[in-house]
Each structure stands twice: as C-alpha cells, then as structure tokens.
C-alpha cells in the first residue's frame, strides 16, 4: 500500500516575485521512522457547522501519540471572508479562509484518563443497588458480593469503561477531558449504593492525577455555517 501526497506552489513571473516560482514536492506518507505506508485513515469526512461554538474535530485520546499522523483539512466555502480557526488544544494554529487547505503533522499527545475502583465487600443481597453514570445495577437472585461486582463491570456506561478483578471493579473515563473527580469512601455521593443488609462498596481513586488531552484538534467557525472537509491518515 502507498499514500502519496504531492504539493505544488506556483507563481508566475512578475507576479509574487520577478521570476516565476515553482516548487513541487511529493511524499509517501509513511509510518514513524519507517518506509511502510500509514495503514489507517478516517476517510474523507465533511462537517457543516451551525453555530460559532468551538468543537473538537479529532480527540487525541483516540490515536497513538507521537507517530507520523497527517491531517488534511479544507475550508470548502467559496465566500472570501468566511473562515474557521484551527487549534491544537487551546493553541491557535491559524485561520483557514474560503478554499484554503492544509496538510498538518499531528502528535496526538494523549491525556491521562481519570480512574477509580469500587471494592465490594460484606454481604450483598437481592435488590441491593449501585448507581453511577446514569446506570442502575440491581442485584438479582444470585446474591453474592462477587456477582454484584461482575454485574457492575458488565454494564455499559456512557462515560466510563469498567473491568472486574474479584470483588474490585475499576472504572476508567472514556475521555481524558472528563476530569470530574469521584468522591471517595464508602458513602460516595457520586457512586451511590443502597443495601438492605451490610453490603458495602468503597470508592478509591486510582493513583495519578488525570490530565486532559492537550493535543485535540479543535475548530472555531468564524461564522455559524461553515463546511469543513478533513481526512486523517494515522497509524
């Protein structure tokens, strides 16, 4: 497989400068430090905005950091003063006016996702519940502590993933930009358990401070309606 990216920069004689300018470069988009082609692409995508609110075009967490990723992006507008601003995190990279395109290397530096554990202990009974991230888990007839941990980990949460090891469930945020810290202890307001007997679920944050992704690609439209085409080649 191969991906070829070619650019020509041209200007006629007595135009930008006295002599004609003609630069042409062609590159094979390869994996970091290798001669083999980048093997993945998002495909060519198109997004039309409806507000001037900034949004995340590409979340760095979804890609491996410090590779040879390349982003092609274009402002498809034909109205000269229509633009959008492209940012890497909160760093303004530049303004892209109607018709402008860019090919940008992208580090995709990942953040550190928030994580915490819940340790289930003592005796959990039928109909005891645990509520988190909008999901309620109720223990059924297999009334054991380990069964509760398995049920909790098997559920699908909107903003977290969960894994189980014995009676301990580890929750990890799906997005490092979610920096909400979970209240720790046996009576957490964030992870709410209700038991009829003496069952407990003790919350503890996993060591290490979560860090928001500092390399997301963000777009701020200069006007409400803006159409952006983009394609990421990545490994």
């Amino acid at each position, binding site marked *: *497989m*191969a*991906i*070829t*990216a*070619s*650019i*020509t*920069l*041209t*200007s*006629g004689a007595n*135009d*930008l*400068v006295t002599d004609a*300018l003609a*630069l042409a*470069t062609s*590159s094979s*988009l*390869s994996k*970091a*430090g*290798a*001669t083999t*082609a980048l*093997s993945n*692409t998002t*495909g*060519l995508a198109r997004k039309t905005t409806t507000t001037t609110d900034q949004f995340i075009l590409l979340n760095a967490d979804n890609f491996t950091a*410090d*590779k*040879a990723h*390349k982003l*092609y992006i*274009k402002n498809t507008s034909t109205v*000269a*003063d229509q*633009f959008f601003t*492209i940012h*890497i*995190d909160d*760093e*303004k*990279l*530049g*303004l*892209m*006016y109607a*018709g*402008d*395109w*860019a*090919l*940008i*290397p*992208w*580090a995709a530096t990942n953040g550190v996702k928030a994580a915490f554990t819940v340790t289930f202990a003592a005796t959990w009974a039928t109909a005891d519940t645990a509520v988190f991230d909008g999901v309620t888990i109720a223990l059924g007839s297999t009334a054991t502590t380990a069964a509760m941990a398995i049920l909790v980990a098997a559920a699908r949460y909107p903003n977290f993933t969960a894994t189980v090891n014995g009676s301990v469930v580890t929750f990890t945020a799906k997005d490092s930009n979610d920096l909400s810290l979970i209240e720790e202890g046996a009576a957490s307001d964030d992870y709410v358990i209700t038991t009829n007997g003496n069952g407990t679920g003790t919350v503890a944050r996993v060591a290490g401070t979560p860090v928001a992704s500092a390399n997301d690609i963000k777009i701020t439209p200069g006007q409400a309606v803006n159409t952006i085409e983009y*394609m990421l*080649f990545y490994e």
Partner: protein
Amino acid sequence: MATTTAAVTLSSDLLSGSLSVTGTTTLMKAGTTADGLNQMRMGRNEIPTGTSFDLLDATAAGIDKANKVYISNESTDTSYYVIIIIDAKVIGRLYGGDWMFLPWNMDDATHDLELTSYVGTNTIEWVKFHENETLTTQGD
C-alpha cells in the same frame, strides 16, 4: 495582484476503492479575493539535534492573517525527524521526506514557529507566504 497557487493531491490504494483528493487554493490576504499574499521568505537549514530553534519569529502584525507556511524535511533517512512546535505546543513530527503546509496565526509575539531535530541533523526547506511584515529596525 500577487497570485500564488498551492495545489495538493492525495492518492492511495489504502482503501478497496481508489482514493484521490485534490485541492487548489490561491493564497489570498485574510478575507479577500482581491489581493493575494504579497510577501515571502524562504530558506534551507540544517538543524542539529539537542536544541529547539526558532525557525520563524512571530510578529504582532501577523495576528489573524492568512499566512501560510510550507516545510519539507529533506532528510533522506526516514528515521530522522523534526518536531514542529508553536509557542511551546507540539504540533507534530515531520519525518525524512515528509512535508507540511499549514496556516500560521501569530497569536502573539511568543507564537514563534520552532523546530527540534531528532536522531541526527535534519535538513529542511521552507517557505512562508505572508502579509504585513515590517522589517526590524537596525539595532547596532
């Protein structure tokens, strides 16, 4: 009007169907079709490892303009790379043979475009198309 054209072609057999994307733009001053970017700098540099260098200094005159920068890493060893940095923010890596073309907004005077070389001495070629640059007054 100064007319400079930047054209790109991306083609690949990565997908089961053919991939071919083209883009062509005339480098205009911000928000107009009547006046093209009319200033340019270009160069070729050898970048040794171990230090982060300013390749292009930001100037307040460049804030919110439509400036464009082209950089090509001419190193023939594909393990060599430079990291592109703007105002301490890592943008990405350009390996030997790679090129980039991006808009550059000089958000403030610290918004310099910097390079750090890795593995060995990288050779880069670059062009900046811009408007509104005033030369610095002689200091000595």
